[in-house]
């Protein structure tokens, strides 16, 4: 049929795949490098509690900071503001899924399952402060337990 005529296409396809694989391989090697050195650093200081704790999922402080912020707003009683702020957590968490989940899928699911009740408590038709406080406290303790696990 048209095999010779269309030989250029498969060659182009294969070289594109090879190129992408190469790019992927390179960025992966730098990634494992940093993760490796990070885990060495933490294993040396496991006995001492540290300010910048990491979990198997890596550095979760950016997410925990937003959650702590939401929690503080809930404590002040401004539930609409807390509802607006927790969306930042939802968006950040959702967009980092592909990066975080492969590191420790079980831990990722634990945290994901802890974020859901916080979202639904704050987004309830008539949100109440007690439920929101409890959901945020549970979420923060999940963060802390994951960081303490190492």
């Amino acid at each position, binding site marked *: 049929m048209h095999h010779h005529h*269309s030989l250029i296409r498969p060659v182009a396809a294969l070289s594109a795949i*090879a190129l*992408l694989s190469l790019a992927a391989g390179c960025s992966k090697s730098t990634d494992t490098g940093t993760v490796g050195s990070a885990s060495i650093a933490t294993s040396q200081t496991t006995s001492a509690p540290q300010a910048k704790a990491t979990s198997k999922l890596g550095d979760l402080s950016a997410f925990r900071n937003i959650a702590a912020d939401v929690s503080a707003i809930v404590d002040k009683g401004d539930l609409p503001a807390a509802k607006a702020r927790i969306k930042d957590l939802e968006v950040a968490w959702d967009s980092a899924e592909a990066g975080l989940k492969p590191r420790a899928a079980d831990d990722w699911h634990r945290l994901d399952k802890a974020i859901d009740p916080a979202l639904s408590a704050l987004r309830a038709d008539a949100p109440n402060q007690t439920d929101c406080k409890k959901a945020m406290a549970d979420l923060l303790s999940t963060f802390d337990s994951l960081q303490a696990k190492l």
Partner: protein
Amino acid sequence: MNTLTTPSASNWLNKVPEAALSFWIIKIMCTTVGETGADFLAVNAGFGQGMTRTVMGALLAVALFMQLRTRRYTPWIYWLTVVLVSVVGTQITDLLTDGLGVSLYVSTSAFAVALAGIFAVWFWVERSLSIHEIFTRSRELFYWSAILCTFALGTAAGDLATEALGLGFTWGAVSFGTLIALTYAAFRLGGNAALTFWIGYILTRPFGAALGDLLTQAKTYGGLGMGAMWTSALFLTVIVMLVAVAQFSVGSRMNAHAAE
């Protein structure tokens, strides 16, 4: 070859495109755009998962209706349907996994069995799984149910690789890319065309997802840090250009036929 129709006539009648390089590029990019698009509606736009599912399901019904109604291959309708099938196929798997707590091992096997079932019935009725002569209503329905099933299966299998093997997007892109290359080599070495096509169709789903993640994810996670918006914009531009070229060439082929 079909003895009743000349190749050019069957080409003209076929309502789905031939699997050339641009076909696979558009197909892979549709996966990423479909997923980031649905994610954007559900999370950023705040529609929620339930609402997004309803909207996407309705849009798919409209696109599929148009695709079934049209009398010949119309690139923009065909690819619009593929993007929406990609979104809905992904949502079916996500609903099973996150909403109903079905294990990925169960859903991956169930979708594999369902796909095998679709192919079995398709072959039993039509005596062929060829994608070169999709112009009867029953073949079209087989074709689109198989495609929906490959997207659901590809999503579940890709997620399973992430969960069970801890396969991140970088190694995901490498592994699925290698499998696609092997499938292509098998096709070139005389492997069954229909079989290699459908294996490629399944594998390009997790490959497209991994490729999308590689571009969108932040550098701290080993991605290129382009972000979902720029990646989608880039892919959408390429898709629109390639589909426009296909649409144009279908149009000029039609004119050439009319002139003969």
